């Protein structure tokens, strides 16, 4: 069992009347890629600030790397790396100077700084632009430089706020591979704040879905899909001369289905109430004498979970 790296209990932070983080509790294990999902204003950035001792909580408790963020802020921040939402690199300095100064600031051993800086510039494809001022850089280059800066001191826990924002698909893929490697090979813990649900599904061991400062769901992507996705699209292939009978049969099974079937290229696509509905639906079709050649459920995604939770929330309101 991995050690707990982040422990949060009943954490609350307000800004005036607005509750940015509301009674939040969760744990993150060492080496996990932990996704923190939510819309703008869901409390993701505030949580990162609280966990790094940059902001004070109004109530609740938290421990990060067994330290109290508020009282052990400097020691904690020496062991964490934070990539902020906007790549806040110094435009007036060169890429290399940006890294050299922050390496010094984060206490990287002096004799190792030049090699470490060159290694990161190289990894992020910035070596050719190392002596150029950052003000001429594209958004993607700034983002890569900010990421390089975050990794300078080889932090044990990485807080990445939208790490692939502004990156082209190739660079984004490279960053995703880096995140996966940091966790898998180096045992680093990654706290990933993102809107990109596809990316989160691919990278995260567990995710939290935030809604207006409150934790709406937590679990592995698979758990969440099974728990929250209550509608599922299923492709059904039947004998071509039995399409009309199949359509009738499906429209009569209202307890298992949602909406009408769509017919595309001789195949039917039907939204069903969930995975559990699939065997009953096959049974029904077979009982009606329909030859079912093929049936396949579309794999739900975190996006489906996210929208399901959002719909649930709206229905409650």
């Amino acid at each position: 069992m991995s050690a707990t790296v982040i422990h949060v209990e009943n954490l609350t932070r307000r800004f005036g009347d607005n509750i940015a983080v509301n009674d939040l509790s969760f744990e993150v294990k060492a080496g996990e890629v932990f996704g923190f999902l939510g819309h703008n204003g869901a409390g993701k950035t505030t949580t990162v600030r609280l966990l790094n001792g940059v902001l004070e909580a109004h109530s609740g408790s938290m421990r990060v790397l067994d330290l109290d963020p508020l009282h052990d802020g400097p020691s904690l921040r020496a062991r964490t790396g934070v990539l902020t939402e906007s790549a806040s690199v110094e435009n007036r300095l060169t890429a290399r100077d940006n890294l050299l100064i922050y390496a010094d600031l984060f206490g990287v051993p002096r004799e190792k700084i030049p090699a470490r800086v060159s290694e990161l510039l190289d990894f992020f494809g910035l070596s050719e632009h190392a002596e150029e001022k950052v003000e001429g850089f594209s958004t993607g280059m700034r983002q890569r430089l900010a990421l390089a800066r975050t990794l300078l001191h080889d932090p044990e826990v990485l807080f990445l706020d939208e790490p692939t924002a502004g990156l082209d698909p190739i660079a984004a893929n490279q960053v995703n591979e880096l995140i996966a490697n940091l966790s898998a090979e180096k045992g680093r813990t990654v706290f990933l704040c993102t809107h990109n649900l596809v990316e989160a599904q691919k990278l995260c061991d567990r995710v939290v879905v935030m809604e207006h400062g409150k934790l709406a769901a937590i679990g592995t992507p698979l758990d969440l899909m099974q728990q929250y996705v209550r509608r599922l699209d299923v492709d059904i292939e039947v004998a071509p001369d039995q399409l009309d009978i199949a359509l009738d049969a499906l429209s009569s099974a209202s307890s298992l289905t949602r909406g009408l079937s769509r017919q595309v290229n001789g195949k039917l696509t039907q939204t069903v109430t969930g995975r559990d509905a699939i065997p009953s639906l096959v049974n029904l079709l077979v009982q009606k004498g329909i030859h079912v050649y093929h049936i396949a459920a579309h794999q739900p995604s975190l996006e489906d979970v996210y929208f399901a939770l959002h719909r649930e929330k709206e229905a409650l309101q």
Partner: protein
Amino acid sequence: MNWRAVFAIVRKDLKIVLQNKGVLIPIILVPLILFGLLPWISALAPSMVNMGGTSLDEIATLIAQMPVGLRTELAPYTLEQQSIVFFLVYMLAPMFLIVPLMVASVIAADSFAGERERRTLESLLYSPTSDRELFIAKLLSSWLAAIVVALAGFLLYVIMANAAAWSTLGRIFFPNWMWIVLVLWVSPAAAGLGLSTMVLVSGRAQGFQDAYQTGGAVVLPILLLMFGQLSGAMYFSIWVVFFIGLILWVIDIALIWFGSKIFRRGRLIARL
């Protein structure tokens, strides 16, 4: 105290200042005019006055209105020499304080308000420094730069004042002990006044320009000293200079103490 981190921030701030023409130009230009050009104008003024058909009597009348202490100090000189010593040693002394004050203000405005404007403050707040270390680093960058510029300006002034007055005085007459006290005791305090004011102003300013314009009023006490001396109400004796320094240091300590109370990560990040 994590001095390595403190000096990394100082280095960062100073490197950034060196890249910003809006900050660099006044830092270079003002000392050059005050310490490079003004000594020559002041030293050549008596001869130009004579060329204009008037006499040195007007300067003599001005000096006659000055406090006894100053008249006593000027007594060993001839009237032409008196006019040079009067302007170069005494009249320009308050103006010297403008340099550390201005340099500290400009850099502090860039370091505090400018950093927020450039959206680079947040990454600094995530650094392994305490609020106190971050505050000290920010103070040091503008204070050290102001001291260096003031000392360089003083050296330039020593050379230029002696060179400009050489034909009249025929010897090295500058600096005197009052100037030594002014440079080593008062100018660091003046720099402290500039930066501590800017720390307070920057908390509410929208950006560098806003902070610098709002904090510009800090130069008023220096102007008061200049007019006070020009009107003969006071003159810069060693003791007066020492007490001016003492008052400035007390104000600095109070402002910096108050600034340190409001310089909190949580407060700063909430305003981003």
